[in-house]
Structures are given as C-alpha cells and as structure tokens.
C-alpha cells in the first residue's frame, strides 16, 4: 500500500469513529459553528465534532502542525476532503480566522504571533471579526481614518469601523488603522486586539433582510499592546490586500453552493406546475432556469480549472480574478429566480401564510444583494481586472 493509500485508509477509519452521525446530515444555518469564547451549540454533536477536528488540526488541514494545523500535504488534503465529502460531513468550523486571517498570519506574522494566535483559530477558541470599512472608506478603503497613536509599548486607537461582521459576537478584531496621516496607502498598519478592551463599543445594524449580521464598531481611546501589530509599521496595506484576496475567494464560493436538497427546477414545478408534457408551465422561467444552470455548471468548472492550472503550474491564475464577481452575480441571479418562481409566496415577510423555508428564501434574496458589495464591490473588482488582467490603460 502506498503512503497515500495508507493515509486514506487511516483517515476513513478515523472519520468513521469520530464524526457523529448528526454531523453527516445537511448543514442547517442555526447549527453552524463559528466558535469563540461565547460559542453556543444548539446541537451538542457539533461541539464534539469541533473538538475532535480541532485537536487533529483538521479544521486547517494544511497549516503547519507547530501552529496547531494538520500539517498535511496537498495530496493528503485532497484525500481528507474527498473522505469528508464521502460521508457528507459538515464543516466542523466556519471562521474568518480560518478563511482570512490565518493565511495572512502564516505569511506576514512573527513567530510569536503565529504561536499565539493560530492554534486558537484552529480549535475555534477565538472568533475574529474584520475591522476594515469605515463610514468614509468603502470602495476607497485606503481612505480610512481610524487612528492609532503610539504611546510607549501600546497604541491608542480612536475612530469608527462599519459593516463589521458579527462584531457583537466576536472576541478579537484584525483591524486596519492609520499610523501616518501624511500619506494614504503607506500610512496604514495592520493590528490585532481584543474586543473586550476598554473603549470598544459595538452597535448592530439592522439590514433590509431584517437581520443584523453587521455592526458599527467604535474605538474610544482603546489601548492595545504594540506587539500585536502584524508586519512593519505603515506596511499594513500589503497585508490588507492579500487578506482581501482570501476573502474574495471565499465570497466567490457562494456561487458554487448548490441549492441544498431540491434542485431549482423542482422547486419551480411546485409553485408553477407543469403542462401535459411534464414541462414547467412557464416558458420564460423554464429558459431562465436552464440558462442559470448552464452558467452555474460553467462556473463550477472554472473553479476546478483554475485549481488544475495552479497545480500544474500553468498560466497565471488570471481566471481566478473573475471568480468573486461571477460568483456574486450567480448567487444573486439564483436568489432572484427563487423568489420570482414562488410568486407572492416569495415576497412574504413574516407570520401566517408563509412557511419557514419561504421566509428563508425571501430573507436570503435580500441578503444576496450584499454579495456584489462586500469584500470589494463588483465595480471595483472589474476596475482591477480591467487594469491588472486585461492591461487596459488608466487615465
């Protein structure tokens, strides 16, 4: 038996023994595990599953073992992923620490910072939020004004962030702060601090979907240790951009998410009905769904192709630059089609007359509008592709 086959056998056996049965059923939003000091587990199995996976380092399979990761090679990781898919295992942990912060800490942080923060991310002990956007710095992110002034071995931070996802539930923040007011991009630093620090306050923002996943976050003379600055002083923009690449890949992922149990056309038939030949009884909707499905399939294949190209060392991965924008567009298209096919059942807000699933579609449709705004708007993304990939001139 080759090493990799051996690894597959061991992995399969371990998963058989350690993945609780209820963690092999389709994920439901309420049972999603985000970790952190204040984590609650609606399903106790999800706590067991996180602890076991965290201890193995398999929530971050390819991070080095000395930082708590799984230390797996690319080939081993592919085996682990396929074995997880085989048993339809739920992700043990959803986390900005895993998706965004961890990768940049591995690249830019000092050894002591890595040892301090990465293992807690792997085990889901600390939940992170992202301090990027400000009221005056959205698409023009580098225009941020939150100030950090050095005072001995601490920074004193004053200012305001906005659209801070789950700030009200997070433990620590990775934050962009202005450390030089005389220059723009080269006056920004990247700093980590505890949200429990005195002077931090958080106010959830109610969105069009009725939910409040985002917050306003205020800093009023917050004193944080200077040792938690990542990278050099005033060199935070480089780290900030790299982190955005990880974030965009992650948002683009929404586009590959299949509607969970029932294919879209079967949902459509439930609401619209079929003609004598078994065709969806709305020719225009039928064509729209087919068109969506083609783009969806092509998008999934583009994802796979980019992966194969990178693995083979071919091309420059240029196609990956479009994944976020196209993924966002697809998810929005899917959401529009869903509520459209549901007719007036797709536009209910709450109360009698609508079931939970219907309300979820409606709220999800409103939520999806953010896909082309968050992590850089589609317009900004297109500016970047036009310049960097297509080589079009700037004025």
């Amino acid at each position: 038996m080759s090493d990799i086959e051996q690894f597959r056998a061991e992995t399969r056996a371990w998963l058989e023994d350690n993945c609780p049965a209820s963690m092999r059923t389709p994920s439901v939003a309420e049972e999603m595990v985000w970790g952190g000091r204040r984590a609650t587990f609606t399903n106790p199995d999800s706590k067991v599953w996180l602890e076991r996976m965290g201890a193995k380092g398999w929530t971050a399979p390819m991070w080095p073992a000395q930082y708590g990761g799984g230390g797996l090679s690319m080939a081993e990781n592919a085996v682990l992923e396929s074995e997880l898919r085989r048993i339809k295992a739920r992700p043990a942990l959803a986390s900005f620490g895993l998706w965004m912060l961890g990768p940049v800490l591995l690249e830019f942080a000092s050894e002591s910072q890595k040892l301090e923060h990465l293992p807690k991310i792997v085990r889901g002990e600390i939940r992170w939020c992202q301090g990027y956007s400000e009221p005056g710095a959205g698409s023009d992110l580098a225009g941020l004004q939150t100030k950090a002034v050095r005072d001995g071995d601490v920074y004193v931070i004053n200012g305001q962030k906005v659209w801070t996802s789950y700030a009200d539930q997070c433990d620590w923040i990775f934050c962009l702060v202005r450390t030089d007011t005389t220059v723009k991009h080269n006056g920004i630093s990247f700093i980590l601090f505890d949200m429990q620090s005195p002077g931090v306050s958080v106010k959830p923002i109610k969105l069009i979907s009725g939910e409040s996943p985002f917050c306003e976050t205020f800093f009023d003379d917050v004193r944080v240790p200077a040792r938690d600055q990542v990278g050099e002083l005033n060199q935070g923009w480089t780290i900030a951009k790299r982190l955005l690449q990880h974030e965009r890949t992650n948002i683009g992922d929404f586009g590959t998410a299949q509607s969970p149990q029932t294919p879209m056309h079967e949902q459509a038939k439930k609401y619209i009905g079929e003609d004598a030949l078994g065709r969806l009884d709305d020719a225009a909707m039928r064509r729209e769904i087919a068109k969506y499905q083609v783009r969806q399939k092509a998008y999934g294949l583009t994802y796979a192709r980019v992966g194969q190209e990178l693995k083979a060392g071919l091309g420059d991965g240029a196609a990956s630059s479009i994944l976020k924008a196209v993924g966002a567009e697809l998810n929005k298209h899917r959401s529009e089609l869903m509520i459209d096919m549901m007719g007036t059942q797709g536009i209910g807000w709450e109360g009698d007359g609508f079931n939970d699933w219907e309300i979820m579609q409606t709220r999800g449709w409103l939520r999806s509008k953010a896909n082309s705004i968050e992590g850089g708007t589609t317009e900004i993304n297109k500016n970047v592709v036009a310049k960097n990939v297509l080589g079009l001139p700037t004025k």
Partner: protein
Amino acid sequence: MALILNEEQTLLKDSAKDLMTAAAPVTRFRALRDAKDELGYSKDLWAQMVDMGWAGICIPEEFGGLDFGFHGLGLVLEETGRTLAATPLVASILVSASAITLGGNDAQKKVLLPKLAEGSLLMALALDESSHFSPHKIATQAQASGTGFKISGNKVFVLDGHVAETLIVATRTSGKTGDRAGITLFLVDRAAAGVTVTRTKMVDSRNAARISFADVQVEASAMLGELGQGADILDPVLDRAALGLAAEMLGASLEVFERTLAYLKERTQFETKIGSFQALQHRAVDMYCNLELAKSILMEALSAVDEGRTADLPVLASSAKAQLCETLHQISSEGVQMHGGIGMTDEHEIGFFLKRARVAEKTFGDAGYHYDRLANLNGF
C-alpha cells in the same frame, strides 16, 4: 475531468495556429468571397490540413485515421475559428466521419473512412427541413421500392451541400414528423438521378445548399444504421457537431475579444485611450468573464467525449453550445460597437466575425434550442 491540455494537445493546437495564421488568414477568406469562388473553400488549404492528419484526427487507425481523439479535432476547429478559415472540416469530418464511425457497418467504414481521412471524399449531412433546427422533425420520405428505397423531400441549410459527393440524408420511414422513432439515414450520391442541389448564399459567405430529392432510388445497402433507428446515430453525432461548432466559436470569440481589446488600447479620443473609460472597461471584463466560463464548459465537454462519458454528453454538449452562442453573440456585437464607425465597414475584418457568429449560432441549434433541450433532459 481534465480541464487542462496535455503536451500532445498543446503541440497540436500550436501547429494548427501556425498553419491557420500562415495559410488561412482572414484575407484569404475575403478573397474567396470576393471571387465568388465556386467551391467556397480552398483546395490548397484543405490539402495542407489533410497532410497534417487533421481530416483523420478522430478516425480510427484501422481505417486510415490518427485516432488522436475528439478533443484534438476541437482544438483544430478552435484555430480555424480564429481566422474564419472555411474548410470541409465541419461537414465532412466533424459531422460525416462521426456518423460513419458511430453508425456505419464494416463495409461502409472500410469504403468511406479512409477516403475521408485522406481528404479525397467530401460528405455532407442533409438534415434540416425548416428554418429552425429540430433534428427529429423529418418529413422527407423513404419508401420501400424494389430491392431498396425511394427518397422524396426537401432539405435546407446543408453545409457543403454543393461540393459534397456523398450525402447522408435523414428520412422518415415510419411514424410522423417530430417522432424520434422512424427516422432512417441513407447514403446518397449527389450525382444520383432526382437530386437537385441549389447553393444558397448565407450572410457568412460559407457553403450551404438546398437539396431536393425526387424519387431518388437507393439500394438497401445504402442505409446507415438500422431501419427506423436513425436517431440513435443522429443524436450523438449532433452532440459532437454542436461541440465542434462550439470549439470553432470559442476561437472566433477569443479572436474578436483580443482584437477589440487591442483597439481599446490604441484608439485615442478626447486626448486619451478609449480603453481608459470605465464604461468600456467593465464591458470588456463582462466579455472576459463569459469567455472564461465558456472555456471551462467546452473543455469539460470535449474531454467527456474522449473519456467515454457518453451519459454526460447530451447535457454537456448542449451546455457548451448554449454558453458559446451567448458568448460569441455578445462579443461579436460588442466587437463592432467598440470599433465604432470603422467596424461598420466592409474593409475592416471585425464585421466578418459578426456575420459568421450569427450563422454559427444557428448551426446545430441556437441558445434557445439548447436551453429547451437541457430543460427536457433535466426533467422540466
């Protein structure tokens, strides 16, 4: 699921690009058009392509082919799409050689495939009977007569119909127009009594013809496949045909996109390059996104043929053709618009691509046809 080319495929694509660039630039195609050439294709170019082995690229070795694989044919077609080379590759090889390979008996393969592979025989598929692609809508009758059959009916939009020596004719031997069952394919000599061929001039200046059959007598041995079972050959052949066209359309899309992008970088108005305008930049990125999606779905579908994933093929072929119809439609239109006034002139080549685009979209089913088919295949 190979979504990248292997070394041999890359070499093939490079040599196809080299030959097309050197021997078949768009200027040659313009010359054919302007000369109202009787053949509608260049014999010299075809001979060079045959020398490269491309006519036999997916014909089995035992019948004189290279057996290189269908993906290879797709790569050559892609390069012909870039220079708008008009060649017998689509009608004779992509469609007819596929039909003989998939549906022919040993005797038919032995006689026809080697001739196709050496480029000495041109063939065409006489299928469509109306202005809209609908492959089972066959009214052309074949009735038992003596030891064979007598064919009567009218065909339209037969690619290479006026230069092909042997026609594959889709007829109805039972059932009613639109039925999948009851279709029978016959090999018919274009010179046979009762066959009348009229060349039609399409907007893309490529070869197409109307062909009428008036009591054309054929022997029973001219039947391709089984009586009444023609759709079993036709359907997989048309999947390959749609895919091959999609590959040609990818080449055309890439060419128009690259030419347009170059123009945006070179054309100056208001003392600046027009490519610096955000309105144009974003539309260029939209085209780029569609191209990347198109490349992926086409690549997957082409590999599915060679990997023998026959069950996946109908969905993949229709998905690829639909995506390429959308992509080329968008890019060929934007190509003219972004070139401005010069794009409207016959002197500029960009308009040639627009004309070819619309014909290629209609060939073997447009986007609407394939969306409808996909909905049927997926049970809605």
